[in-house]
C-alpha cells in the first residue's frame, strides 16, 4: 500500500488530492506512474508529463527512485512559490 498525493494543477486535472495505490512493492516512481496511468485516460495524460516532480516521504527524488510499502509519494508540477 502506497499513499499517493497530488498537488496544484495536477490535483485539479486528476480531480483527486489523495489516492491509495495497491501495487506490488518495492517498485520505482516510474512503475508507480505507469500503474496510476491505467486509472483512466485523463490520468494517463496528466501523469505522463516530463515536467512532473516527485517527492518520497517529503524529499524530492528522481523518477528512478525506489518506492516501498508505506511510503508517502507526492506528484506535483514545477513549484512557483516565493
Amino acid at each position, binding site marked *: 500500500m502506497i499513499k499517493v498525493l497530488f498537488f*496544484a494543477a495536477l490535483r485539479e486535472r486528476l480531480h483527486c488530492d489523495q489516492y491509495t495505490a495497491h501495487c506490488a512493492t518495492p517498485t520505482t516512481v516510474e512503475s508507480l506512474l505507469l500503474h496510476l496511468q491505467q486509472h483512466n485516460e485523463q490520468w494517463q495524460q496528466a501523469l505522463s508529463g516530463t515536467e512532473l516532480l516527485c517527492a518520497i516521504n517529503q524529499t*524530492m527524488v528522481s523518477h528512478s527512485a525506489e518506492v516501498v510499502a508505506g511510503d508517502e509519494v507526492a506528484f506535483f508540477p514545477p*513549484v512557483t*512559490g*516565493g
Partner: protein
Amino acid sequence: MTVFVAVQTDDFCQASEYDELRRNAGCGAIVTFCGLVRDLQSTTLSGMTLEHYPGMTEKALKDIAYKAKSRWELGAVHIIHRVGYLKPNAQIVFVGVASAHRAAAFSACEFIMDYLKNQAPFWKKEHTTEAEYWVASKDSDKVALARWEH
C-alpha cells in the same frame, strides 16, 4: 546558528524578524528579502492563492537554510512563507540572514531564495477579474539556481 522557519496563513512583521536577527552577537551584517503580491502581467489581479504540501514545505525550507549554513558562516537564518489567499500588495515571503560578513549575508539570502523558488513545494494560482490560472514556473529561476551548483 539559529534557524527559524514558518509556513503560515497569517501575515508576518518584517520589523520583528529584523529585530530578532539584530540580536545575534558578532553579526554586523543583516540582509533581508521580502516578496510581495504584485500585478505584473495584467491590471486585473484580484488576488492569489498559495497552495503548499503541508509538512514538506517546512522540511524543505529547513533543508535550504542548513544548505546555506554549510556554505557560509552565518549567525541566523529566518524564513517565513505564507499560504492561502493573498490580496495584491500582501507579503508572501521573508528571508533574513545575519552574518559577520556582508558578502556571506548577501550570498546566503539570495541562495535561499533561489532554492526556495525551485525546490520548496508551493504553487501560486492567480485570480483576475476574468479567470484564474496556475502561475507557470520560470526558466530564469532555474538559471538562477544553476549558478550555485558548483
